């Protein structure tokens, strides 16, 4: 177990430097005028240039720049936006509601996906199975840019079931529609993975043993099969966080939720380079950390890995 954790940690350190390097290189490498990249179409004044120099050390060599950038990330200094706000403050303000939204989406999608996935696997070829398979196809085909505005239009504007926009101190009810939209992004794949994983495990030899032991179907499926089947599903939920982050940018934009995605969305729209780089970097770190946690959880769930 210790060896597994150490190896996984080392991997994460490598991926961290690799990923931040990629982000940074994509942003700045080989640019004729890095100031203009950060500032977009704006006219850059000399004082702004000086400020950007202080922040990004653009007058230094590339690796020095990268070094300062990583140092900033690790010490929690994410720089200042073109409008003069500290990005760290913006993040601190935006996090709570984004975490609420994402957690809600993860919980809703996981509960629906696992319940429906297990049910269609147990009743394979049944009506429920066929209907969910078609539904997952339809859901998979809905890009978030379609889903979010259409859901807002139908359930918020036309039917009036949910509030159309969300305030900063939103309650769960306000967040429900955006969370459903967000959860829809990942529910289909999670359901399909659950279904095929359960179906595969139902054919396993240990299921025959469990039945020979005189256990009820509920216990065979609910304990023996489920515990084995959840292993790939948990991993998938970790990977899905990346999808949810991407989805949150659009969803928060559409529903005016003042979270991390909304700030990033506005940063892109207003061409505020430091905001984009800062937020993207932080999201990448969160993604890496969550996937590390998921991998450790994986080891807890699968003893064959734990004792490797």
């Amino acid at each position, binding site marked *: 177990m210790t060896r597994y954790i150490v190896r996984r940690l080392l991997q994460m350190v490598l991926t961290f430097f*690799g990923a931040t390097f*990629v982000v940074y290189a994509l*942003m700045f490498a080989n640019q004729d005028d890095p100031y203009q990249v950060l500032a977009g179409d704006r006219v850059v004044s000399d004082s702004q240039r000086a400020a950007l120099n202080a922040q990004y050390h653009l007058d230094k060599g590339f690796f020095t720049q990268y070094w300062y950038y990583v140092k900033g990330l690790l010490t929690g200094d994410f720089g200042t936006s073109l409008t003069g706000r500290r990005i760290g403050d913006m993040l601190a303000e935006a996090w709570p509601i984004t975490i609420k939204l994402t957690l809600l989406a993860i919980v809703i999608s996981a509960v629906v996906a696992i319940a429906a996935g297990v049910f269609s696997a147990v009743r394979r070829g049944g009506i429920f199975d066929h209907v969910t398979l078609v539904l997952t196809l339809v859901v998979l085909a809905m*890009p978030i840019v*379609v889903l979010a505005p259409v859901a807002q239009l139908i359930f918020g504007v036309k039917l009036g079931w949910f509030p159309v926009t969300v305030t900063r101190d939103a309650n769960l009810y306000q967040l429900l529609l955006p969370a459903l939209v967000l959860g829809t992004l*990942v529910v289909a794949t999670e359901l399909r993975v659950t279904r*095929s994983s359960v179906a595969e495990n139902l054919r396993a030899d240990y299921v025959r043993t469990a039945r020979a032991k005189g256990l009820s179907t509920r216990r065979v499926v609910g304990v023996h099969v489920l515990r084995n089947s959840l292993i790939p599903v948990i991993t998938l939920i970790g990977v899905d966080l990346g999808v949810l982050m991407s989805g949150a940018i659009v969803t928060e934009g559409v529903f005016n939720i003042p979270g991390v995605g909304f700030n990033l969305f506005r940063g*892109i729209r207003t061409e505020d380079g430091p905001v984009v780089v800062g937020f993207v970097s932080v999201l990448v770190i969160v*993604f890496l950390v969550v996937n590390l946690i998921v991998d450790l959880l994986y080891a807890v769930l699968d003893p064959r890995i734990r004792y490797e």
Partner: protein
Amino acid sequence: MSDINAVTTAEAPGPAATRPADASSAKPRSLAGDAWRDLRRSKVFWIAAVLVAVILLMAVWPTLFTSADPANCQLANRHHPAGGGALFGYDFQGCNVYARTIYGARDSIFVAVVATLIAGVIGLTVGLVAGFYGRWADAVLSRFIDIVLGVPFLLAAIVLARRFTVHETDTGVLAVTLTLGLLGWTTAARVMRSAVITARNQDYVTAARMLGAGPGRLMFRHILPNAVGPFLVVLTLLLGINIAAEATLSYLGVGLQGDAISWGTSIAGNGPYVRVVAGPVVWPSIFLAVTVLAFIMLGDAVRDAFDPKRR
């Protein structure tokens, strides 16, 4: 935006995500034949194929479907209801929504197809090299794939698309195509790599090596034909994902812009007015969703056909 990793591993999770056809070892030639026979009998395949054909026709030859000029927008027509050549009415700039939706297929499809080709070539090369040479080549390339996967796709795309965009005059087609192509190859590479590793260890490949076949011949005559099935499935799904990704990037303002006509730009441009008139948002949305659906169905059908376990 769907995630390609999630989609392609949806039916076979875990380490064995891409178990290539076992049957391939016994009769390498008949696998493709079997798959094609299965495909021809699959309803899903035919529905998807017809949809894709219609969409491609739309992209190549839009005048078949409409005689209106999508660029002929008159503010006087703003939000006018359907009538005349405008089946779906007019949008906030007074453009013919039907014409723009038809013509929108062109850039959407172009970006997706070329980006998928780029991703395919990179994925094929990386996967082949990593799988065939193994050892340190595999270690380095696999780490590199991990790093690219360590950045969520859209976040990387946002940064990259900004990077490629030449301001003012550019419609962004090139920038978006390059962005999606350079980021989308990882799953293809992984699938290729594991397929090659499985194929490499088959007896008949060992036999060919014993008989003195060089690495080039081994790769292209013996290994590649058997690794190609799962690889094609990934590319088909990637097409659908790229179409959705282009729309998302355009919506965010880092994709197609300016004079470009695409479903994504239509949705983004008309988004703020969706409460006034829904049509200009809803119609391109439907076309977009149906196109993505067609490619996902195609990928599903092809995967089923290539999967010996399902026979």
